[in-house]
């Protein structure tokens, strides 16, 4: 792997940019690997990267039915934060946030992590109580989160409507300054480049159609559209399709898959300096470096794999955006799209061993998995390499739905479910 640097740019500029190499190779699948990761999204590629860099396991294949980073990694609204209520969640999301800081240097790839601050608005007394509880819980866990008055919120985000006669007036806000955004595609590409350089095979257009198990129940490998590929360890990181893959191994999951939509506006000059979220009116917004307003909507109410959702869901979100930011009422929207998110009953992910020996699963991130990408890959690689969870993901088992030891993050997406 040739390192990217200012000197590399200068050198290539001198010779007509003929020396740039492919960022990752596209090898033919081998008959057998030590580890197979199902799903080349951010979490799957990060898992492969940390298997190679931290655990020295490089005989790894990442299988992807479509193209790399083409699922929810390329469809999310790129928000990063770690201000979750419970200790277990604080542990895993802040582990990720610490890795975001410095990820571009680690990968030698600009993931454009921008700690521009994530501000969550309070519109009523109940919001104030809930958000202040979060502020205090976060600070006890060593996570930055602070309370702002409406005046301070307005100062931090000038286009925000804080007038007292708004339909849902802003009465305060919680601000996590380390929160922000990153370039979602670059995260997948950076991890893919790093993993590929260390010998990991990334195999695109290769859909898993079955999971083979030996007589003793253990995993032997997977059937794919490109034939059988053997492995004693298989990690399923398939987002909305996780329960489909797990069913192939005979494991029924506490998951339901829903469409989640987002949309972007025409590009404009910098106007929203941070990420603004509102649980009560149900909208979140930030501005990409290209200038588009990036707006996230809620899930549809029914199980679906269609990667589209109802128009009324987007309309509802835009109503809220126009309420919070009246200056955007005449903005034109450019594109909208949907992704399929796998939601657990307690709105917390599952990163765990499964009842099947050699089968591991990293799923259930629901509406907010992007922010956890580095941390999720890091601890999931540990779980696969050691056949034992990292202390950070130890609470995120499948068995918690039998024992009742839930991690009940109703605020997982900071929106009302």
């Amino acid at each position: 792997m040739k390192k990217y640097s200012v000197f590399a740019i200068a050198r290539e500029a001198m010779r007509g940019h003929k020396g740039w190499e492919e960022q990752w190779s596209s090898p033919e699948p081998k008959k057998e690997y030590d580890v197979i990761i199902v799903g080349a999204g951010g979490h799957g590629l990060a898992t492969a990267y940390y298997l190679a860099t931290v655990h020295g396991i490089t005989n790894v294949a990442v299988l992807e039915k479509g193209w790399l980073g083409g699922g929810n990694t390329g469809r999310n609204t790129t928000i990063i934060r770690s201000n979750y209520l419970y200790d277990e969640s604080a542990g895993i999301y802040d582990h990720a946030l610490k890795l975001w800081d410095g990820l571009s240097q680690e990968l030698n790839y600009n993931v454009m992590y921008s700690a521009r601050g994530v501000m969550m608005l309070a519109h009523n007394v109940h919001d104030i109580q809930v958000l202040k509880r979060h502020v205090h819980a976060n600070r006890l866990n060593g996570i930055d989160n602070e309370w702002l008055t409406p005046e301070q919120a307005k100062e931090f985000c000038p286009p925000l409507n804080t007038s007292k006669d708004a339909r849902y007036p802003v009465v305060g806000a919680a601000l996590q300054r380390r929160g922000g955004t990153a370039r979602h595609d670059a995260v997948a590409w950076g991890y893919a480049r790093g993993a590929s350089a260390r010998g990991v095979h990334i195999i695109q257009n290769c859909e898993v159609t079955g999971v083979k198990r030996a007589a003793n129940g253990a995993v032997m490998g997977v059937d794919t559209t490109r034939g059988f590929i053997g492995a004693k360890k298989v990690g399923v990181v398939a987002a909305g399709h996780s329960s489909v893959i797990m069913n192939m191994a005979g494991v029924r999951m506490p998951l339901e898959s829903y469409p989640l939509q987002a949309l972007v506006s025409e590009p404009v000059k910098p106007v929203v300096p941070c990420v603004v979220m509102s649980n009560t009116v149900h909208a979140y917004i930030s501005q990409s470096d290209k200038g588009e307003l990036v707006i996230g909507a809620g899930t549809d109410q029914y199980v679906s794999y269609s990667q589209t959702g109802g128009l009324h869901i987007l309309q509802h979100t835009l109503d809220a955006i126009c309420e919070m930011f009246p200056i955007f009422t005449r903005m034109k929207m450019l594109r909208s799209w949907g992704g399929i998110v796998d939601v657990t009953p307690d709105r917390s992910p599952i990163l765990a061993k499964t009842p099947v020996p050699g089968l591991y699963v990293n799923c259930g991130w629901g509406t907010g998995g992007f922010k956890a990408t580095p941390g999720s890959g890091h601890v999931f690689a540990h779980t696969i390499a050691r056949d034992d969870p990292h202390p950070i993901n130890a609470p995120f088992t499948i068995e918690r739905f039998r024992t009742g030891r839930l991690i009940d993050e109703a605020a997982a997406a900071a929106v009302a479910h």
Partner: protein
Amino acid sequence: MLLIRCPYCEEERPELEFRNAGEAHIARSANMAGESDDDFEKFFFIRSNPKGIIYERWRHMHGCARFFNAVRDTVTDKFIMTYKAGEPKPSNLPKISNEVVAK
């Protein structure tokens, strides 16, 4: 937005009138306190989440307010049929084409 046929009102109405109520044909135990942890997990948390045909409950919230069941394809979101609550799970599903039928 989906168009959903309420089997009680016998009318196709927009999705906004309805509330999805999750997977259908999950029997609630008559003796909940006596359920084992395994059985309770299956009843309460485990879902089939199929990619394909789903049997699900809907409620005509802003109409007759009654619960009913539907069969839908989760890949196309097309409804295959709806039927009244309490009726058995249909075994022979009518064929549905993904082509738009010319009228």
